[in-house]
């Protein structure tokens, strides 16, 4: 007989370390959950998977049209607005889309959670799957816009170089902040459905408090610190823009933003892990 694991189930919650170990044991399950969540989106819709394409592209087209043709926005020289906008929007969209999905993932996977044990923390992580798909699509959109600008203006609107690696911490930062906000929201959404609607409207408003559609120079100097201090997404969007098209980057603000981000993320994961064993009663 092969080795038999011994499972001990006790009233007191497992240590955080034990929880993270079981997360690793069940890692293969992440793929299944991600797939389930992505499919869940498409189920019962007419356009099915095409929504993955449509949803992020609709605001892109609208916003680019508005701020180039209706009310043109000045950007740094040599960079067309569409490239400027997308260079920040791709990272912003991670946050916005995650806030759209994460509160719903718990309800989507409820029937699975009622039937079997697996670390519940996998659910919000798997909930990032549709967001990552959208991110890849937006990267493709960016490539298309860049290529057309290149062909039109005769020079490449991107800054090619090592700085582009800055996109990696920007994406990681955006994913972390998404989980930071998304995990407690997902828990609360099990009690109140309102959260799902509220958080989506909140994300829409929040975008205009973040330098996504406009350059950060639009914000008066004396208020800029507040934007960075209270909004970790501001520095993340700026970092992503700097990585792709260049410009100034305030290292101090960036460090502040990432520090807040990490502290909040740890707090959020801890809350989720503690709430995890209690969630069963609510499902």
């Amino acid at each position, binding site marked *: 007989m092969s080795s*038999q694991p011994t*499972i001990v*189930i006790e009233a007191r919650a497992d240590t955080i370390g034990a929880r993270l170990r079981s997360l690793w044991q069940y890692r293969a*399950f992440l793929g299944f959950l991600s797939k389930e969540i992505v*499919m869940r989106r498409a189920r019962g819709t007419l356009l099915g998977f095409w929504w993955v394409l449509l949803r992020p592209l609709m605001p892109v087209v609208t916003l680019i049209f508005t701020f180039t043709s209706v009310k043109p926005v000045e950007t740094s020289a040599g960079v067309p607005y569409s490239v400027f906008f997308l260079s920040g929007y791709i990272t912003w969209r991670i946050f916005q889309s995650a806030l759209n999905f994460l509160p719903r993932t718990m309800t989507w996977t409820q029937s699975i959670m009622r039937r*079997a044990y697996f670390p519940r923390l996998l659910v919000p992580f798997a909930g990032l799957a549709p967001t990552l798909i959208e991110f890849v699509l937006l990267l493709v959109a960016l490539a298309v816009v860049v290529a057309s600008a290149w062909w039109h203006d005769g020079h490449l609107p991107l800054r090619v170089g090592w700085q582009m690696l800055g996109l990696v911490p920007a994406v990681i930062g955006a994913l972390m902040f998404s989980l930071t906000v998304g995990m407690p929201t997902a828990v609360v959404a099990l009690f109140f459905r309102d959260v799902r609607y509220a958080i989506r409207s909140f994300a829409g408003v929040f975008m205009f408090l973040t330098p996504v559609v406009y350059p950060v120079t639009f914000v008066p100097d004396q208020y800029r610190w507040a934007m960075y201090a209270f909004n970790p997404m501001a520095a993340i969007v700026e970092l992503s823009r700097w990585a792709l098209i260049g410009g100034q980057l305030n290292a101090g603000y960036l460090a502040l933003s990432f520090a807040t981000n990490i502290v909040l993320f740890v707090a959020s994961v801890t809350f989720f892990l503690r709430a995890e064993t209690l969630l069963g009663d609510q499902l």
Partner: protein
Amino acid sequence: MTPTRVSVRNVSKVFARHKATRVRGIATDGWPALRDLVHKTMRRTREHSRDGRDQLWALDHVSFDVAPGEIVGIIGRNGAGKSTLLKILARVLSPTAGCVTIHGRVVSMLELGIGFAPDLTVRQNIQIQGRLAGIPGKRVLASEERILELAGMSAFRDSPLRLCPSGSAVQLGFATMMGLGAEVVLADEVLAVGDAAFRKMCEEQVEAVGASGVSVLFVSHDMAAIRRICSRVIWIDRGRVVQIGSTDEVVEAYTTELLAGRLLAPLTGDALAASCRLLAARLLDENHAPVGALTITSPGYLDCLVRVSRPDVTALVDVELWLDEHHLFTATSPPMQAAQPTTFRTAVHIPGDFLNEQQYQARFRVRALGYHDAEGAPTITSEERLDFRVINVQREQSVWNEWTGTSKGFISPRLTWRLSRAQ
């Protein structure tokens, strides 16, 4: 090999019953429930105090052991805590107190219904179940053929589960559970579905895996099945273990109690300050003694007390009989009216050889004649629901003389047949 496979020690589970508050006219227990969750999350320990809050002790210091190869049946009334126990063993719920030790891998089938992942193929579903039990992918692949064969779904192996014939999700779930080679199997009312052939297959499989050293814990209301396959039975009532012992002994005691009506919940009158209200609803046997179950052959009564306190109100009782989501029939009482406030007793006769071996629900609804709500539906002044079982004590009494002891269908009336040779 260890002498015990599953060891349950003093396991308790308390559900906090939150009082629903009304927020903008909508009743919700969201706020108190959420407050409770945040409170418990913030505190370092999750000890439970027996303070004044409204609590439901779904399990109250339950202890037992299961040896390898044992097939243990768990019986008890609805809401006795059987499913909660299985869910704790499967780690879907965490216990409030106590400790469970399981030596080996666990597969479970807790809630029936739509399949696990309807969009994935049959084979992927098997893989997922295996992963959840912690069985390596290679071993799952090795047992795949056997599982598909058991479920009778070899032809559907690569089609999504939702496109497979209805009922196949359950069959697949069961076959996976049996075929994966885990050491502990938890099954909640698996035998309640499927046709006779499927159930027979289930029972044979349970016996076969039991013989090979797998421990099976299963919850069922089907006493005939329990008697056939279990080596030991645990009877739980209101969260406590009433009796653990040999199958015949415990099942005997349980059915005796059920028939004696001692397991009935205390009758609660409806506190509606209405002109006509239901005071009590009971199930009586043919001698007018309150019982908790009827036998398939003997008649009984669905009996109720109705208080009519105004002379200008005429009360009627509708007794609806339900089986799961199916409304079988409605019987309406004669009108009740009196000059002085009066308590009426009215009962509808349920003939013997009429109901099937099933779990029924009788819904007693009192309404005042001539009163309607805005939509024109009669105003129900009070309502009571009464769950009761119809059981088959002796197999020979059954209208059906096949192996199963249980026939299919909502009712099983004794019908007459005529047989003659055609000219």
